């Protein structure tokens, strides 16, 4: 097993959280307001992209 790349792991975690949020919303387990949901989706997507970008710069 090679060296763990934390940034890529964080990126994957952000996507898992994004999927979990969408799943809970789709199943009506949680009721998030439109604005908060949009902000959470944008934040997690942005976080995943930033983490992925950081990961790409690592050797």
């Amino acid at each position, binding site marked *: 097993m090679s060296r763990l790349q934390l940034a890529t792991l964080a*990126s994957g975690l952000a*996507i*898992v959280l994004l999927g979990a949020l969408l*799943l809970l919303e*789709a*199943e009506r387990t949680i009721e998030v307001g439109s604005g908060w*949901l*949009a902000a959470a989706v944008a934040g997690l997507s942005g976080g995943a992209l930033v983490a992925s970008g950081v990961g790409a710069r690592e050797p």
Partner: protein
Amino acid sequence: MAEKKQDPKTEEANDRAEAPRRRLLRSPRERVLWGVCGGLGDYLNVDPTWVRLGFVAAVLFGGFGLLAYLVMAVVVPEDDGSGNPVSGQRPPTWALVLLGLAVLFALPGPLWGWGWGGPHWWWDFAGAFWLGVLILAGVLAYRALSGRPLDLFRRRGGDDPTKAKAKAADEPEAGGGPPRIARALALIAIVLIGFSAAAAMAVISGWATATGNGAVIAGVVIALGVALGATAFFADSRQAAPWLLGLALILALPAGAVAAGDVRFDGGIGQRDHRPTVATDIPADGYELGIGQLIVDLRDLPWSEGQVVPLRTELGIGQLIVAVPTEVCVTGEADIKGGELLVRGDATGGVDAEFDRGTPAGNAPRLELDAEMQFGQLVVTDDDPDEVDDEHDRRGDDEDEIAAAEEACQR
């Protein structure tokens, strides 16, 4: 011995033959974006500023200047500083991306139901043609990338395919393999196909979420996230990480947008026509439709003084028509995210349009409306629903019907 004097015309011809052939290349020095105008200026012996102004002016002619610039940025090689093209350089990625987008918007955009001229007009006109163009582009891309470009794209000079292949194998850095124009076309085709595939996936994701299948999309996003996280542990699989991330975002962003916008298309597609003859025929949870036309004709109900008939309706996209007798007072609320509300002749339009009328003091028979729509037109009328047509949304307020509705509510 006296030197033989040459004819001036012959001398000029010899000079031309000896002078190196000037090539059209993108300038590495005179550049704002990709050096196209600088290169053209060098080639034509014109100040690049004039060329830039020419391109800007050409943008005004249906975007031609922009498209021409992007095509040149992709097809014309860059100058290496000595008047020769940079060897083995790929076309600028952003120029390819922008060109792909421009082509998608300008040409086959309406193929997918959007673009200029209204949805699907181009598909009706020449949809099959653009489908053919896409397939042809895919074939060309495959042939070019597999080293078997069509004769059309081979370099001039008469190399036969076998020799060209052998040369390409021997001298990959010296311009062997598919020529630049074929590679550029192949890349454009790949970008185009990639955009189309991404757009299709995004539409499927948004559609699935709007029709109540968001859990499936969410599950796929979670699986992609797990796979992405797993690549952190294995160096060999890290090349897959950007693709997994891109795919996850293509699916998650439209699903998130649809969920945040509370867009729902439950109830199927098509036309639904409900004409109850007694109030108990109306289901307690009302009528719903995903996309299409929903007609609820209540004119045959036995309306009586003081009677209140609750009606709940839900429509995703389309037209909802509720017909009531003239003497019935319409109260309650109707919300539409985008489109037009036309309640008894009173027209309201735009984003988040709503109708809200409280209980009147009189004893008139009353329809208590609870209507919800995403996009389209909601009509509450005393006309025959079959006679409500597109003209309705261009008429605006109907003073006669407004007066009749007011009178009904004041009885």
